[in-house]
């Protein structure tokens, strides 16, 4: 009996310890200058915070707030390049030389002045490190320092996309002196000799409104205000970004007041957030395209290599049902490769579902009784649901779709090896210029067009005009012509363009959604 008492006592003591610990006084947060903004999001993607090495999504937001670029696209007007570090710029008649005039008197957070040499160093380091974002600097043949505040950039070919590329966070200007002090270099062999990454992972060397003070992988990123920011003092003292992978938990933290903002909510949680009187929900239109890609290679799929079959598939998808039912309406649809919001898009070109026409095309192609095809995709919960819907949509015209979900890395390997016939993929922009899409979807020797064996010289001719023509009107026409060619060949049909659901405390002001770098913390107040 004594033992029974002893055992019961042990269980009770454990319960008591747990309860006492639960009742222990809550930690008093370390006092910091107010206001502090706590944002929760999934930060699994962050690999590095060195802007010349990083090529993920979360870092774009961090770099936009810790560094300055020469120019920028302000949220709300994505068609106009606005000055940032460069007050103005001139373009030579042949479109090959850009001269930027830097805003005088700007200083990095170290106190060093921002000079033309820093621009040269930054872009050469980016190029020579040869890591993922190095392609941004491909177009740059040379950077010449004219004087402290004037820099001349020579391009390899005329490029109407160049200013948009300059606005990308990877093209930000770093403090060359500080980066060199920590082992950085812009030398030709920088891919082997540059040693500044570890330091730049934990610190920023920029002139931006915030300073990176800490990054703990899969835990948090901390930014502190730069009180001497040249465009004015930030209205937030500190930004804490916490890694919370589970969306339900993230919303609970927001509702409990432990967080001020959730970067991205699941569509299932929107109503719950909207019903909370303390919260505001903002819907941001992304430029992310989700598409079906169909091979032109008869060895991979004879039916798909026939453009009539590809057209039939595009006509069989119930796009409205997909967006309204599966995405609960939080999605849009662009007619072709160019997303809504980008030069050259024409919503009037949008093609919906037409089963009769689809069946007629299949009959014409000799597939009246349908055929079997395997749909491959990198598996995630959203794609699984949509793939099931696509399977049932295509079954209505007699096409049997066998779903083949794969680990993303395996899917990418097979897709890049040009082995897949029918894919469900996505494309997210790095910068705001139509070439982001026309390059990827049109050329036989690169991007998804290559992976799907798509080869049409006419499409490439238009894509080339989009990539080099400096006259906006001619360029816009080429984008429209290209879309017509692509919609006839139909190697890709665009399924939907995501919308991002941002939830935040009503006290947070100044939020404007940006489709590349998400948010500018400089504009926020609380």
């Amino acid at each position, binding site marked *: *009996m004594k033992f*029974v008492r*002893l*055992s*019961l006592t*042990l*269980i009770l003591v*454990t319960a008591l310890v*747990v309860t006492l*610990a*639960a*009742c222990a*006084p*809550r*930690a*008093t*947060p*370390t006092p910091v200058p107010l206001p*502090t903004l706590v944002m929760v999001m999934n930060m*699994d993607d962050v*690999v*590095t915070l060195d802007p010349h*090495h990083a*090529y993920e999504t979360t870092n774009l937001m961090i770099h936009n707030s810790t560094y300055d670029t020469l120019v920028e696209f302000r949220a709300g007007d994505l068609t106009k390049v606005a000055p940032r570090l460069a007050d103005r710029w001139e373009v030579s008649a042949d479109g090959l030389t850009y001269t930027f005039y830097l805003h005088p008197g700007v200083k990095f957070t170290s106190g060093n002045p921002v000079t033309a040499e820093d621009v040269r160093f930054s872009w050469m380091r980016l190029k020579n490190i*040869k*890591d*993922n*974002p*190095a*392609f941004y600097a*491909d177009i740059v043949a040379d950077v010449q320092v004219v004087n402290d505040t004037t820099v001349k950039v020579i391009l390899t070919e005329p490029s109407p996309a160049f200013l948009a590329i300059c606005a990308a966070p990877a093209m930000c200007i770093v403090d060359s002196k500080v980066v060199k002090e920590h082992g950085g270099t812009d030398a030709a062999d920088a*891919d*082997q000799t540059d040693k500044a*990454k570890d330091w730049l992972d934990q610190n920023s060397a920029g002139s931006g409104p915030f300073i990176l003070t800490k990054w*703990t*992988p*899969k*835990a*948090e990123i901390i930014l502190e205000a730069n009180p001497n920011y040249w465009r004015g003092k930030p209205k937030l003292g500190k930004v804490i970004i916490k*890694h*919370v*992978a*589970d969306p339900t*938990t993230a919303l*609970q*933290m927001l509702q*409990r007041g*432990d*967080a001020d903002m959730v970067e991205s909510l699941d569509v299932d949680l929107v109503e719950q957030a909207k019903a909370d009187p303390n919260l505001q929900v903002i819907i941001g239109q992304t430029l992310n395209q989700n598409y079906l890609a169909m091979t032109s290679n008869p060895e991979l799929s004879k039916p798909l290599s026939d453009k009539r079959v590809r057209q039939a598939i595009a006509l069989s998808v119930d796009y409205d049902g997909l967006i309204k039912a599966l995405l609960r309406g939080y999605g849009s649809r662009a007619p072709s490769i160019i997303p809504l919001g980008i030069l050259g898009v024409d919503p009037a070109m949008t093609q919906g579902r037409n089963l009769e026409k689809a069946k007629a095309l299949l009959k014409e192609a000799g597939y009246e009784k349908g055929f079997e095809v395997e749909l491959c995709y990198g598996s995630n919960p959203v794609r699984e649901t949509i793939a099931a819907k696509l399977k049932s949509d295509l079954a209505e015209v007699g096409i049997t779709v066998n779903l083949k979900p794969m*680990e993303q*890395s*395996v899917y*990418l*390997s*097979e897709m*890049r*090896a040009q082995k897949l016939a029918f894919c469900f993929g996505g494309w997210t922009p*790095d910068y705001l210029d139509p070439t982001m899409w026309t390059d990827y979807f049109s050329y036989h*020797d690169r*991007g998804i067009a290559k992976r799907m064996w798509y080869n049409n010289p006419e499409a490439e001719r238009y894509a080339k005009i989009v990539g080099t023509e400096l006259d906006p009107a001619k360029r816009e026409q080429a984008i429209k012509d290209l879309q017509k060619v692509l919609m006839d060949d139909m190697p890709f049909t665009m399924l939907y363009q995501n919308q991002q659901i941002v939830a935040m405390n009503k006290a947070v002001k100044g939020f404007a959604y940006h489709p590349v770098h998400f948010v500018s913390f400089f504009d926020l107040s609380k």
Partner: protein
Amino acid sequence: MGLSTHIIRRLLLVIPMLIGVTLLTFLVSRVVPADPLVVIVSEKALDHPDIVEAAIRKWGLDKPLPQQYLYYVWNLAHGDLGVSFKTKRPVAQDLAQYLPATVELSVASLLFATAVGLPLGILAAVKAGSWIDHLARFISLLGASMPPFWSGLMALFLFYFKARILPGPGRIDARAATPHGITGLYLLDTFLLGDTNAFADALRHLILPSVILGWFTLAIICRITRSSLLEVLRMDYIRTARAKGLHERVVLLRHALRNAFIPTLTTMGLAFAGLMTGAIMTETIFAWPGIGRYAVEAAVNLDYPAVLGTTLLIALIYIFVNLIVDILYGVIDPRIREA
């Protein structure tokens, strides 16, 4: 054989085991039908030959497979676990970053599971068929059948969101500064720094995840203890002890439990190693930056330096925990040591 010889022999066995683990993991991770370049080089950069060439050179992917393996083992022998394809940081640095959070959570979970599961199992055996036995069975059933992603969400919803008596996800308050790392174990660090508020906060944050994670282990410990104790209690020597007129407490604690504890100890050893590596769902729900998520991400991303590093670490943990369990066997039952 003496205890020290036993330990030395076991430790020497670790070396061939680790070589086997590295070779097997290396081969398996390279047989997978995917290209490591996919993880290293982005879709856009893949069309740029100079970026691809730089990556191949930097990561040694142009070398033949045996050479890559030998290079890996050579570096390993010098304490270098290589650099992760995905995080682009040294694997050792990554593991050092995530291990303390996992150790803290696993130890707390095991303590909870043992402190409740062991006495509950003993009570269930001693009072077999009574309400205590039924209660123990119910608690075990709950622990064994509730998936952590569900119980974790429910626990957060009830105790954090609704009742507001426990803190939310993470290891410490979202607005509080993280303790400056000495060991990376927040409880120990805050204790060593004498920061009682942060210590209390870290402790409060540990409750829900460790209870959720430990509950399954609790169920196993409870059931194994109950069944093995029941079996021992039916043995002749127990009847003899009782016939000698020994006090029931002495029969139970000195004679029965000592023998019945061996299967429980084995279970605890395995469970602890499992807790160290299998907490992926608990880590996700509670935003706990542990090694479970790192291991899973390494695997799905074909990040074989990270896969090898985590596999080695897990193997070492299993070996170490089993060694401790073996030593404890010897302490509980000297016949095992002599065998």
